[in-house]
């Protein structure tokens, strides 16, 4: 990868980190240059929809959702109100933008400039030390609650999102809401903090449209393997069907995913999550949010609703129709209609290297969890591209024990503190930060971090370590081709 191409995608410091050998003979080629998502025509602000998403309805809904996904929310007095009283960032695309809107964390962190940009008041907020200019976008959680004395109470699991910033002090938030940020410094000093980075959403509609029986069959076919891999499903607690979105596969559908993110990450209530969200400690103590911090948008609840009247005077009926659903619904529509990333057959390393790397990936057992292709989705009533389609996502959508090295001590549904959903690898080639907390930008480090005390991946990583150096490099090239 040329330095010039890499510089277009990341700062120099990050580039140096990504291509440094760090003591290994093999090197991560770094973020793949060239077409965004491997798609002709995609731009950083205009990802491509699925092929069947065409004018006359689907495309207009997609474009409307894309626009809303990029909208900067405010507390009150604007077109999109309801931000806060706590938030991690003011727009969806601020976090989900690498290499295009809908993706993962960008190279420069917009959370770092929330105060300098005037989104959060400097009188009531500070940038947490774990948010850096060129580090990953992050949400923070405390695995456990604290005692009154500031010790970690291991009898009281927490795991909920501790939102970074408050709207207190913003001109549009009024003067009565005085909230403080969570005790991040205490959490860091007691090692009682974990992080999550944004999950990319390209191709999410395909993942959503896989029938449970298909996933179960994949799991059964892997039974009795000689790799020590087992896996399990996270399920919806109400009906027992397989959940599949989020780092622990805790969310059932894109609509739930959207509504929850809107509420947790931006503090905006919707028809899916109609109540304002307090911090976990405020909830568990029964105090909740102060009354002065409620209804800051001054329009009642939920802040995001279905529009009973169109919000546009467009002459295009499809555009008019697309303006009716709520933001949360349109976010999910946008993600559902996003095209999946396409792999490169030549970059990096050339086609032979990529083919060799793929073979190695499968033959050492990576493909046992990172299933290359799921055949296929169920018929779709949404759009033809989502129906009876192969899903080349490199995931089994199961949660796996990843050991103490990756454990975050957060339990969500069936997923315990060391269990994580197999991350889909499509689009990996143009991601910057890896693993659930973005702890590394080096793909080789990310691979080796899969092994550890109690991990299902230990034998596969041992197999990787047994490969000849050239084959290991082929495997890295293959991954960056995705």
């Amino acid at each position, binding site marked *: 990868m040329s330095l010039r191409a890499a510089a277009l995608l990341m700062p120099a410091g990050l580039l140096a980190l990504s291509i440094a050998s760090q003591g290994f003979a093999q090197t991560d080629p770094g973020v793949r240059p060239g077409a965004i998502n491997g798609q002709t025509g995609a731009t950083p602000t205009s990802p491509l929809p699925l092929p069947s998403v065409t004018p006359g309805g689907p495309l207009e809904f997609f474009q409307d959702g894309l626009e809303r996904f990029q909208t900067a929310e405010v507390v009150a007095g604007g077109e999109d109100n309801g931000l806060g009283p706590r938030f991690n960032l003011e727009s969806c695309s601020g976090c989900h933008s690498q290499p295009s809107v809908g993706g993962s964390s960008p190279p420069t962190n917009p959370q770092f400039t929330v105060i300098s940009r005037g989104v959060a008041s400097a009188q009531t907020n500070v940038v947490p030390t774990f948010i850096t200019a060129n580090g990953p976008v992050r949400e923070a959680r405390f695995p456990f609650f604290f005692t009154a004395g500031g010790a970690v109470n291991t009898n*009281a699991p927490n795991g909920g999102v501790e939102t970074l910033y408050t709207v207190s002090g913003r001109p549009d938030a009024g003067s009565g809401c005085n909230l403080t940020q969570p005790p991040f410094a205490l959490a860091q000093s007691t090692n009682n903090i974990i992080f999550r980075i944004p999950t990319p959403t390209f191709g999410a509609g395909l993942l959503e449209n896989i029938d449970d029986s298909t996933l179960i069959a994949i799991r*059964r076919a892997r039974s009795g393997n000689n790799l020590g891999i087992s896996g399990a499903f996270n399920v919806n607690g109400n009906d027992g069907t397989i959940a599949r979105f989020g780092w622990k596969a805790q969310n059932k559908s894109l609509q739930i995913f959207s509504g929850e993110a809107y509420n947790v990450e931006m503090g905006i209530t919707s028809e899916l999550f109609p109540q304002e969200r307090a911090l976990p400690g405020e909830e568990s103590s029964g105090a909740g949010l102060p009354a002065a911090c409620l209804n800051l948008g001054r329009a009642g609840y939920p802040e995001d609703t279905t529009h009973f009247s169109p919000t546009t005077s467009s002459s295009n009926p499809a555009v008019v129709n697309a303006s009716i659903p709520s933001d949360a619904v349109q976010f999910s529509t946008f993600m559902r209609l996003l095209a999946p990333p396409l792999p490169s057959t030549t970059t990096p390393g050339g086609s032979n290297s990529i083919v060799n790397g793929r073979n190695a990936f499968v033959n050492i057992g990576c493909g046992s969890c990172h299933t290359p292709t799921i055949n296929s989705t169920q018929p779709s009533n949404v759009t033809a591209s989502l129906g009876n389609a192969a899903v080349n996502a490199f995931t089994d959508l199961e949660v796996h024990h990843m050991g103490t090295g990756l454990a975050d*001590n957060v339990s969500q549904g069936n997923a315990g503190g060391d269990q994580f959903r197999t991350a889909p690898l499509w689009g990996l080639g143009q991601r910057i930060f890896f693993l659930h907390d973005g702890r590394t930008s080096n793909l080789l480090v990310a691979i080796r971090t899969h092994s550890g005390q109690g991990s299902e991946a230990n034998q596969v990583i041992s197999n990787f370590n047994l490969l000849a150096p050239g084959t290991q490099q082929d495997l890295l090239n293959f991954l960056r081709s995705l």
Partner: protein
Amino acid sequence: MVCWVCAAALAAQTGDSASTPASMAKLPAETLLVKGAWSSASDSTTPVPEGGTVADHRYTNDYFGLRYPLPGNWIQQYEGPPPSDAGDYVLAQIVPKDSSDAANRGTLLITAHDLFFTPVSATNAREFLNDIAIHLGAGHEVEQPPSQVRIRQRDFVRFGYASPAIGLHWYVLATEIRCHIVQFVFTTRDRALTDKLLREFQSVDLPGALDGLPHPSSGDAPVCLKDYASPMNVVKRVDPVLLEHRFNPIPVRVIIDKEGRVKHAHFLSAFPADAKTITDALWQWRFKPYVIDGRPVEVETGIVFGRELPVTASRKVPN
């Protein structure tokens, strides 16, 4: 993202609560304190499959009656994951202490697969390895088809395959112990190391080995019978009422005494609250005693509570 259940109710999910202090000034790094479904047992003295240990340069497993001297300068770097709800175990993974040692580029993975719960439709080691053989990926070649071999007076099935493109060889030795398929999977870059490890494997200690050493599993172990908890054998059954996680499969191995009472319950994968609910119910079950030559004997069998993984016809095992 949001922890909907109150902190007190989740307290039971923290693992090893007896050894974890209630409050800590600082959490230890890389320590799992919040477990999901995990293995557990009704008592701490009855051996369980995952209870093996590596000490004094030897892997010892009292449940299987297994003692395996590790190859020279090989160690267990990491313990494996907990048992799965499909009956899969990683008993140990042994690797060279010096990963740069060119003469020792290999690993040994010791696994067990519970025949009561595995979705693989196999009843013995031969069928189990045949199933693996026919499901090998396109990049693998069979070097030695599954065949019978005798090691230390015990029957094994051996199976060798390789991936020429990446230069790795696998050699599997599988045997049946207490209705489990116990496998020794050697992975190497060269056949010479495989041969060396197989020669050293002759010193393994297993039930049925004629060496005069006591083996808990040879004669002392209960008779293992699949599906013994069928209506014809269960005189009294009390169904546990599972409230949370009721959609999970919860496999349980029980040991039934000569009077037909459950004396031990081993949960392969269960949340603590479910394990307690099921255990309380199992203590009330009554079975018909299993009789051999006119004498009642202890029985080990498997029961799945919750939602069992559905059986599909997609995986066929050749004879």
